[in-house]
């Protein structure tokens, strides 16, 4: 901190500083353009390394600091899944899918998390999305097959979940009706048999 302010003071005294600053800025932009993918890859490698050695804290910190939104969603959702935080995994995946609707890993992870959480309609929606993404022309054959298989499996499992939820809703309605009917019958019986009614 001290060194930087001292340098700025010196630059203010020298006319060339402005030229030097412009040159430095240009070099930085050019360098960033060339090096960005390598840096990003390096950042992801660091996340992986931290996770592999069991430094979860560092892995989460690095993952959340990844500059590209899809990579960030990919890694944070992966770590959340490994940490057993399924609601967070699903939430991060769904947010990531808003930016990249056909990200295959986010789709697969979101579908698994939704199924594990018992969120049938969300899983069904994700199954449809997996199949839609498989139909994209830019998708290569291997990925297409993978997406289709996952989509089918998710659809099947989500279908069962939704069916159970529908059965549960029907059973609830049935039980409410039986309760109302049964209690009404008892009440009518009591009224009919009450001493006043018996007198009449």
């Amino acid at each position, binding site marked *: 901190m001290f060194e930087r302010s001292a340098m700025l003071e010196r630059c203010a005294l020298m006319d060339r500083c402005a030229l030097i600053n412009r040159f430095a800025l240009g070099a930085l932009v050019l360098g960033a353009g060339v090096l960005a993918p390598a840096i990003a890859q390096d950042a992801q490698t660091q996340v992986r390394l931290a996770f592999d050695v069991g430094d979860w804290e560092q892995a989460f910190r690095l993952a959340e600091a990844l500059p590209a939104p899809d990579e960030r969603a990919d890694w944070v959702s992966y770590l959340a899944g490994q940490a057993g935080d399924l609601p967070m995994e699903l939430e991060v995946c769904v947010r990531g899918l808003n930016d990249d609707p056909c990200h295959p890993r986010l789709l697969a992870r979101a579908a698994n998390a939704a199924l594990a959480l018992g969120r049938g309609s969300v899983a069904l929606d994700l199954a449809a999305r997996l199949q839609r993404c498989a139909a994209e022309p830019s998708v290569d054959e291997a990925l297409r097959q993978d997406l289709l298989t996952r989509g089918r499996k998710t659809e099947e499992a989500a279908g069962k979940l939704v069916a159970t939820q529908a059965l*549960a809703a029907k*059973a609830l309605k049935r039980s409410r009706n039986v309760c109302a009917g049964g*209690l009404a019958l008892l009440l009518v019986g009591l009224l009919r048999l009450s001493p006043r009614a018996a007198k009449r």
Partner: protein
Amino acid sequence: MVLAIAAAAGAVTLVVELSAVRLLAPWFGASTRVWTNVIAAILAALSLGYLLGARWSTSAAPMRFVALVLGAGGCLAAWLPGLSPVVAGWFIPQGVRLEQAASLATFGSLACALILFAPPAICLGAVSPLAGEQLARVLGLSSGQASGRVLCVSTLGSLVGSFLATHAMVPMLGLTRTFLWCGASLWLLALAALWSSRGYVSPAGWPSVASKVVSGLFAVLALGAGLVSRWRAPQPQAPNIVLEELQSAYQFVRVVEDHSIEPAWRLVQVNEGLDSFQSVWSPTPGLLGQGLYYDYFALPAWLETRPGRWRVLVLGLGGGTAFGVLSNASPENVELDLWGVELDPAMVEVGQRWMELDKYTRSGQVLAGEDARSALRRLPLDFDLIVLDAYAHQVEIPAHLMTKEFLDELESHLRPGGWCLVNAGGFGADDPVVRAVRATLCAAFEQDSVALRVPRSRNWIVGARRNTPWPDPMRADGDVARALLGPLHAPGSVVRGGPSSCGAGDVLTDDKSDMELRQMASLAAAQARDV
């Protein structure tokens, strides 16, 4: 004869009432809501039965009506074991998750109670006024004298029935035989009433042909019930297999072997079970893995790093899963002295038979059949760790075990610096149950409480220490500690709060505890989230 009939009817009414919840428990649980529904349906039906009996008591031969209602009640009671699985199945589909089942349990159990238990209760309710009238006529008593005597013997009969049901019939005979016994007893009483009423014929000549038809029908129904009316709990889905099923004095208990994992695990389920279990046993020693909160009971020894003897008490031992984890996942330099308290002795027996419970503890250190609160007063005062893992009705921490007063007592059984861990079922740090457990621990220990999210589960482990703040819960050495703590680096997985920030409104006391309402709110919120 009349008084004997009234007494026996009273006894059978209570046997049916107390055993009724057991019939429904594998589908709806045995929570206070289910008990309330069953009692309410039976009381409403009894009141209708009283009026019906009063109406028939004006007939020429009340004892014939006594025979009729006893015969009908006997048939209906004998059919309950066979009918209850079918009727319960209409109101709760298979595969429903715990959080989806909350409202189904409330309305489903009431609907079942109305269909199954109201009809026999109407019949049994009609006995008292008819018996009172008969007594008044035979002995020339006033209505007050007659009804007083009938009510007295009927209530004494109910008293006997309540003890019989809980302490003898259900645990020793099982549910099917208990209800068949009730049916047979009522039938014998019906025959006795019919015999005692011989010579009476109503002016309309009612008993002649109609009574023969009705008696024949009842005989067929009773015989059919004896042959086919069998109670059976819902079976687990393949590839799981049932190793043992039993009715304890408290609940329906079942040991299931889960073959979806190899080598197979064993689970102890009670009552409705659904996707939950009370104890688990893995043939592989060590941590059980994500989704199983028991692993976190091993954490204090790793955080404190104090070698030597650790005296540990588990309140709500179940089949002894906590003992297995503590024994297999504690640091090597720790020597465990394990104590346990379990209310239901059948759970301990099941643990001994199927979960190697005897391997981990010395004799006399597992108090089976005792309530945690009363047992604690007789236990040593120098525990290093007390785990509170007691659950009633599958999902509720018993209200008297989560109050400031009880936790004060519990704290006094810890050495200074000793640890208390509570297993709280909840769907997030803000879950009403988790909030109450944190606040109550804070208030009792006057220290920070720390809540740890258990990965892949709906459980939180909430802890506090006696006179000592928790160390940074994320800093511990050793493979086991790293495996447990690593996943908790996900945001929001560790919540720490001091006495000032724990929320006084959430502190539960002996005087005021809304644990059951909080549990309902927690499940309702989880269900709403799924929808």
